[in-house]
């Protein structure tokens, strides 16, 4: 009954092990820490789109910035094709890595310099990351890139300034700049949330086609679970800096195991569903994770919380094929009892 088609996976591009990032609150003598990201094990493979969903403040963007080497982890490690990022040190190596794993930002109005033509950003990226190309070659490549992101005729767009472009077109320029580095993985941080509804789907389709045609993987960060379903293979649900649940996207939607995922899914407005409004929808707010103790961070909002939830932090457990959740209460659908701990890590990482 649980024979699910699991897409054949390519090689592992990025793996994080116990990835943790804390931010000190207040002055530098302060002893209070915001736990933005705690103990994350995440992997992204070749030719795969992984969606990271969660509420604001759940740590999604922090993970992207850690992978992009904008932040250094407080603890844990990120491996790129097996090599720890801590060993990527020289300027040349960092540049090379950032070319492999570029970022596309949320705000297409803030991420392009208004004083330069479109060609500037793309040519600059080509100059930095594509030493093999001649001047002529760079120009041809810039045109090819704009065509790849659906901006045609490319020659016209190269000469334009950002103010002459719509939000959707600007975001496509962002993708073209990322493509200029010949990336393996693009970190897309809420790339459509600031776009108009009618052009969002075009950018999502662009991500899907870049994966199909150029074999590029994506880490798609979003708060919109429906758009995650539309493009992603795998869904990772974050709550308060930790992974609550992860698995193949359709399996997580059809069989959400974590009570938080269930809450999230029930809150998505769906015009296709029949109208039924509960009389009241009082829910508490997600916590700001400042120096948390042991225990499940969702327990205060959880309808199924038991004693154990306030004493022991739940670890991710495999509950369905390739699908795990960090919950003491959730039951397994696997026929044979699964190993309870997915990874066995050095305690000093935490």
């Amino acid at each position, binding site marked *: 009954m649980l024979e699910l088609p699991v897409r054949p996976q390519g090689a592992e591009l990025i793996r994080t092990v116990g990835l943790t990032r804390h931010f000190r609150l207040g002055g530098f003598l302060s002893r209070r820490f915001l736990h933005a990201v705690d103990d994350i094990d995440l992997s992204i493979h070749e030719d795969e789109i992984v969606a990271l969903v969660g509420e604001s403040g759940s740590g999604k963007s922090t993970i992207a910035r850690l992978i992009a080497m904008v932040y250094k982890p407080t603890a844990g490690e990120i491996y790129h094709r097996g090599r720890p990022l801590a060993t990527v040190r020289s300027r040349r190596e960092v540049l090379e890595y950032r070319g492999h794993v570029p970022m596309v930002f949320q705000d297409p109005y803030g991420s392009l310099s208004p004083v330069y033509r479109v060609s500037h950003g793309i040519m600059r990226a080509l100059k930095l990351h594509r030493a093999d190309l001649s001047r002529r070659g760079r120009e041809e490549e810039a045109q090819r890139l704009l065509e790849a992101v659906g901006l045609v005729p490319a020659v016209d767009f190269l000469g334009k300034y950002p103010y002459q472009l719509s939000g959707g077109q600007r975001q496509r320029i962002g993708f073209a700049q990322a493509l200029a580095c010949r990336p393996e993985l693009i970190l897309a941080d809420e790339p459509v949330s600031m776009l*108009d509804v009618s052009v969002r*789907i075009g950018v999502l389709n662009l991500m899907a086609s870049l994966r199909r045609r150029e074999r590029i993987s994506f880490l798609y960060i979003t708060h919109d679970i429906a758009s995650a379903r539309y493009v992603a293979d795998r869904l990772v649900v974050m709550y308060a800096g930790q992974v609550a649940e992860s698995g193949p996207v359709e399996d997580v939607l059809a069989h959400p195991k974590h009570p938080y995922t269930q809450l999230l899914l029930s809150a998505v407005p769906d015009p296709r569903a029949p109208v039924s*409004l509960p009389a009241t929808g009082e829910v508490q*707010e997600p916590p700001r994770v400042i120096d948390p103790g042991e225990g499940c961070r969702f327990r205060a909002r959880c309808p199924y919380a038991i004693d154990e939830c306030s004493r022991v932090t739940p670890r991710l457990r495999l509950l369905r094929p390739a699908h795990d959740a960090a919950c003491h209460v959730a039951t397994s659908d696997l026929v044979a009892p699964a190993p309870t701990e997915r990874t066995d890590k050095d305690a000093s990482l935490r």
Partner: protein
Amino acid sequence: MIATATRPLLEVKDLCVDYLTDRGAVRAVDHVSLEVRKGEFLGIVGESGCGKSTLLFAIARLLTPPAEIASGDIWFEGNDLVSMTESELRHFRWKQYSVVMQSAMNALNPVMSIGEQLRDAFDAHQHLTGRQVEKRSEELMRIVGIDPVHLRSYPHQLSGGMRQRAMIAMALAFTPELVIMDEPTSALDVVAQRSLMLKIKQLQREFGFATIFVTHDMSLVSHFSDRLAVMYAGQVVEVGETRQVFADPKHPYTVGLMRSFPSITGALQPLSGIPGSPPDLARPPAGCRFHPRCPHVMPRCKVEEPDFYAREADLVRCFLFDA
């Protein structure tokens, strides 16, 4: 159709709003007519720049230069809002209608506690003793589901959802007939968003006020609004019963919008969105404003501007329904 005996609470007729710029007037709201009945929830959906917020500001008489009402009428229970002076409006606002802004963080005063801001509003509009103000403030906080201890809190100490609730509490302070809401949930996460929507609906049932709710997210209002108006490039292009519009969208723009957001239920379908992007209102296309993006464009769409045509209970501004 049977004419209803009661006249609508709010009637907007042929309203036009211009932004006066160096390059001439830009018409942001073009001949919009709407009705809001007592206790009704009217959703207005449209993309950024379609004029939905400008329309709301015009209805609330909150437009500031360079925007101005160029022509048209706004009737509120027989009162002509357009010709009202500022001092007349002062007696009208808050008591008859109130506004909940998109960003509570910007709309609330950061250096005053929530309680002080409520007291300010009470002092300006009603003569109450300190004790009465306190009692009423506590009551209002409870109504919107915030612990009254937060009357002493400052806006930055509240979460986004609580700030929006505090705004709604203020809007309800004088039990108005109409509450105008400009994307009050757009800064919130889905869970908080749904919780706030349910709260608004519950308050509406309890106190019977009407709501105009503007949003760019069509799916958000699908379960909450009674009627829906879809705006495109400054005009209303379709208006009808919400469930009817969702079940059977008629204007090609509405159809395109419906095909723009993926669903978490049902089979996964490839979506196309709408090609192109909304027009620059300084140079709107001739004829139907949607024709450059429309899959059903006909020769007359490029030269003639469509009127409203009735289909079932809906009104559609499209020549496809000119029969």
